[in-house]
Structures are given as structure tokens and as C-alpha cells.
């Protein structure tokens, strides 16, 4: 009976502690959302140039009268705090404005494109996490071996290559010279085979790029872990090299990899956008590129916000995984 009570007290303390920590994290995420969305409100209004142009984009040709009408309709003649509240009201209704270039609401345009970007991104993230952590940990474990050093050089070269340049190269070799893959991107036409055919090269490039990243992180992390005492103990227990690496080190060393995958999700996604531009694919990359060329700002603001939301979700997701893998982790 007393035993039972004691455990329940411990349980209570633990859960209260982790609650506090989670609240702090949640607070940070909310603050990040608040700041990013506020940035998005203030940037078009305080940058040089006409706020109406900054908000609507330069692709809009309208008369002076219509301009006044639009200004009134958008509330630009009202005081700033009113506009700000109005802005948040719109945000809560998923209203991110209207694109005059693409002729549609920003929300619907973004939603129709984002799935293609995720289709490129998600398989690459999984594949690269597997390859990167496997090769990276093997290489970090035997870090002074020739094979490990050579592999590191190769991975570092891929890491140094901007995705758009790697895409240009592969497009030139495999599509122009060898004719193995289509030159133009995918446009909602064929079946699964067609999609695979169009996605093969882009997914390969994204995977190569991300693998090199994960490899470098994992290698550094394993090098750091392997000098710790628990490794010596595991070896002394008589475990084989592989057992020490994959049973004991791997789990600890992969934590930084997870964190960095989430933290740099925006950077990773940007890499995918550039691949989409070169391969003229149907995702967000080309949408952003077209928006830049036609100065269609609402699409750019919308993309920025949607990418920010994804980054924050990725971080929250990794926090949950973290607490599952390592129960000690609370306050980093």
C-alpha cells in the first residue's frame, strides 16, 4: 500500500515537471508563430514602396479609382492597430489574401501545390535519415580509417553542392544526353508509373543532398559519443564492436540528428524548392519562382507562413519523439 502511494507521488512530480517543460516549449512555439505572422504583417507595410503594391503584387493593373476602392476594402486607410487586428482575424479564417497573377485565393493555390512538394520531401527525408545515420555512424566509429575519410570527402562534396546546381548537372546528363528521364516536370497527367518516372531524379538528388548532411552530423556525433565511459563499459562487458555501436552509441548519437532535421526543416524545404524549379515540377518551388518573376507578393507571404508553420510542427513532432526515445530529456 505504502509502496503504491510512493510511486504515485513520484509519478505526480515527474508529470508536473515535464508539464512545465512542455509549457515552456509550447510557449516558444506560440511566440515563434506570433512573431513570424507579425513580421508578415509589418514587412509589406513598412518596406519602401507603396503598401498597396507591396500587398497586392506588381502584376495588378488598375485605375486610380479602383485603387482607392481597394485601399478602403483592404482597410489600408484605417489606423494600424485596426489593420493588425483585422489581419489576425483573417489569419484565423485561413485567409491569406488573393493572388492576381494566379487568379485564386492564396490558401487554395498553396494547398494544391504543397502535396507535390511533400511527395518529393518526405521519401527523401526517410531515405536520407537511414543512409546518413548508418554510414555516418560507421564512419564516425572508425573515423581514422582510409575508407571513412574518403567517404567523408565525397559526402562533404555533395554537402557543398547547391541543390539547384546538382539538379542542373543531372538534368543535363540523364535527360539531355542520355534521354533516360523526362526534361519537363510532372503535370497531373499519368498514373503512378508516370509519377515515379518524373520523381525519380529529384528524389535522388534530394536524398543525396540530405544524406550528406545527416552523414556529417552523425559522424561528428558518434565521434563525440565514443569517448564516453559507457562505451568503455560496454566494450569491457565483452560486446562486439557492432553491438557497442548499434546497441549503445547509435541511439544517443542520433538525437542531434533528429533535432537538426527539425530545426533546419526550413532550409531542407528550401533545397527541395530549388530542385522543383530546375525540373519544372508542380510543387511550391515553381509557384514561388513564378511569383518572384511576376512580383506576385501574396503568394510569397503565404508560402513563407506555410513553411514556417511546417517548421514549427516539425520541431514539436521531434520533441514528442525525443521524449519517447530518451525519457531523461526534458530541459535541453
Amino acid at each position, binding site marked *: 500500500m505504502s509502496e503504491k502511494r510512493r510511486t504515485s507521488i513520484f509519478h505526480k512530480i515527474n508529470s508536473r515537471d515535464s508539464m512545465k517543460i512542455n509549457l515552456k516549449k509550447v510557449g516558444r512555439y506560440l511566440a515563434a508563430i506570433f*512573431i513570424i505572422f507579425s513580421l508578415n504583417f509589418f514587412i509589406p507595410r513598412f518596406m519602401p*514602396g507603396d503598401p498597396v503594391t507591396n500587398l497586392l503584387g506588381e502584376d495588378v493593373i488598375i485605375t486610380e479609382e479602383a485603387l482607392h476602392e481597394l485601399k478602403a476594402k483592404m482597410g489600408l486607410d484605417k489606423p494600424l492597430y485596426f489593420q493588425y487586428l483585422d489581419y489576425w482575424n483573417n489569419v484565423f479564417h485561413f485567409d491569406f489574401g488573393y493572388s492576381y497573377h494566379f487568379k485564386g485565393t492564396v490558401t487554395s493555390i498553396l494547398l494544391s501545390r504543397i502535396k507535390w512538394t511533400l511527395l518529393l520531401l518526405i521519401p527523401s527525408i526517410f531515405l536520407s535519415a537511414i543512409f546518413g545515420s548508418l554510414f555516418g555512424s560507421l564512419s564516425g566509429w572508425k573515423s581514422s580509417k582510409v575508407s571513412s575519410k574518403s567517404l567523408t570527402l565525397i559526402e562533404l562534396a555533395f554537402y557543398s553542392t547547391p541543390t539547384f546546381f546538382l539538379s542542373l548537372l543531372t538534368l543535363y546528363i540523364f535527360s539531355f544526353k542520355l534521354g533516360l528521364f523526362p526534361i519537363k516536370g510532372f503535370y497531373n497527367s499519368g498514373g503512378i508509373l508516370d509519377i515515379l518516372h518524373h520523381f525519380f531524379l529529384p528524389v535522388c538528388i534530394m536524398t543525396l543532398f540530405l544524406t550528406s548532411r545527416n552523414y556529417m552530423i552523425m559522424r561528428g556525433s558518434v565521434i563525440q559519443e565514443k569517448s564516453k565511459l559507457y562505451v568503455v563499459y560496454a566494450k569491457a562487458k565483452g560486446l562486439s564492436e557492432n553491438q557497442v555501436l548499434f546497441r549503445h552509441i547509435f541511439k544517443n548519437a542520433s538525437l542531434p540528428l533528429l533535432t*537538426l532535421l527539425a530545426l533546419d526543416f526550413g532550409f531542407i524545404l528550401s533545397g527541395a524548392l530549388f530542385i522543383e524549379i530546375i525540373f519544372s515540377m508542380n510543387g511550391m518551388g515553381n509557384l514561388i519562382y513564378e511569383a518572384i518573376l511576376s512580383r506576385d507578393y501574396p503568394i510569397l507571404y503565404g508560402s*513563407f507562413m506555410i513553411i514556417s508553420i511546417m517548421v514549427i510542427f516539425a520541431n514539436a513532432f521531434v520533441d514528442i519523439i525525443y521524449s519517447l526515445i530518451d525519457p531523461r530529456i526534458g530541459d535541453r
Partner: protein
Amino acid sequence: MTHHLEEMKKYVIEKTNLNFVGISLFLVFLILSLFAEFISPYSPWDRFEPYSSPSATHILGTNDIGNDILSELIYGTRVSLIVGFGASMIATLLGIIIGLLSGYYRGLTDEILMAITDIFLMIPRIPLIIILAALLRPSFWIIMLLIGFLWWPTTARVVRSSTLQLRDASFVLSSKSIGFSDNKILLSDILPNIVYVIIPKFMLTIASAMFSEASISFLGLGDPSMKSWGMMLNFAFMKGGLINEMWWWYLPPGFCIVAVVFSLMLIGFSLEEKENIVMGLE
């Protein structure tokens, strides 16, 4: 004999100092950028016959408006390196200040500064720079500033965690007990002892800044009066260099970006590995 060769190869690879390879490669580009006037055959703005193939007079041919591509490439080294260095200087300085303060004072200062750092880390930087560059049509210097002000958070985190490790070290405590001011302790006790963390981070930030500048310029959002490598790639892509298979136009700037970034990463990572620092994390 072959066995002997294999041994030799093994020996060479084992003994090769990756740091040294990185530094030499980087020095080549540094010399190109410093002495562009003397090395480059023409000015990058001189105009000749457009779209010409490589020849004796134009080793890498000319572009769509007749600029000599080799000259553009050599002068581009300067533009790309200045952006990288400048942005990294700003980012590193900011990172050092924020990291030192939050690691040394801890408590509320730490909470606030780290909250700001964490939030900054989550802002998608490339999309934000795209928006700002599209609205501002910025000059080269503004792009440098923008990158500098967005790239500091990882440095701040690394500096903070090293400062945390040092703040209770005996030599810091003895300085405190003598009565040195906090500023004095931070600058002459702590900072010199974390330089080994800052230098690799500085190198990696230059690489990352150059990478980003190339990406932004590739989208056509760079400063048109400054020909960076990213800008050259943008023109080659937009004006039909790729489709017309003019490899001499788009391959060299791409490989230059890769080579410089590679050399910096080599330096940064081999220093980090030597000192056992894992990227930006405690």
C-alpha cells in the same frame, strides 16, 4: 609492385591533412579575388561577340550580351567572397555577444536570449530573404547585411554552451575573486578560450552565407550591378545556356561555388572534429 602502390596510396591518404587541402584550395580563390585585375584577361563588363564558344581569345566563350565568361568568373570570386565574409563577420559577432552574455549571466538573461535564439532558429531564412529581396531589390551590401542578421543563432548556441562550461572554471573564479569586472573576465578569460569553437563555426558560416547568396542570385534576386557566381548561373539558366548545351557557361560558376564552399567546409569540419564539437548543440 601494385601492392606497393596500394600501400603508398594508403599512406598518402592517411597522412594528408584535410585541413591543409581545404586551406590551399581556399587560398587559390582568395588570390583570384584579390588580384582579379591582373589575372583576368578582360573586364567583366567588356562586350564582344555574344554566345561564342570557347576559343583562344575567350577561353570559356562569351555570354548572351558578349561578356567574357572567364573574366566574369574571376571577378565573381570577389563578389561571392565579400558577401560570405561580410555576412559571416556580422553573424559571428552577434553570435559571440549573445552566446557570451547568456552563458555567463545565466538566469533571466539566458532565458530571454535563448528564447530569442530559438525563435530565430525556427524562422525559415531563405523564404524570408526571398520576400525581402523581392520587395527591396537590394544592393549587394544589403543582401550581405540580411544574411548576417539571420545567420547568428547557431553560433550563439555553440558559444553559450562553451561559456557555460567555462564560467565555473578555476581561472575564471580566481579572476572574479581578484575583483575583475564581468566585461574583463568575458573578454580576457572566456573569449580567448572559446576561440577554437568560434573559428570553425565562422568558416562554416561563410560557406553557408555564400551558399545562400548563390541561391538568391540564382532566383534573379541579386544585385545586377555585381556579378556573382549565382547571378551567372541565373543568366545561363534563363538565357538558354542550359538548353543550348553551352556547358562552358553554366558549369564553371557552379563548380566554383562548390569548390569554395567545399574548401571552407573542409576547414570548418576538420577543426570541429579535432575539437569534438557537434554542430550547435550541447
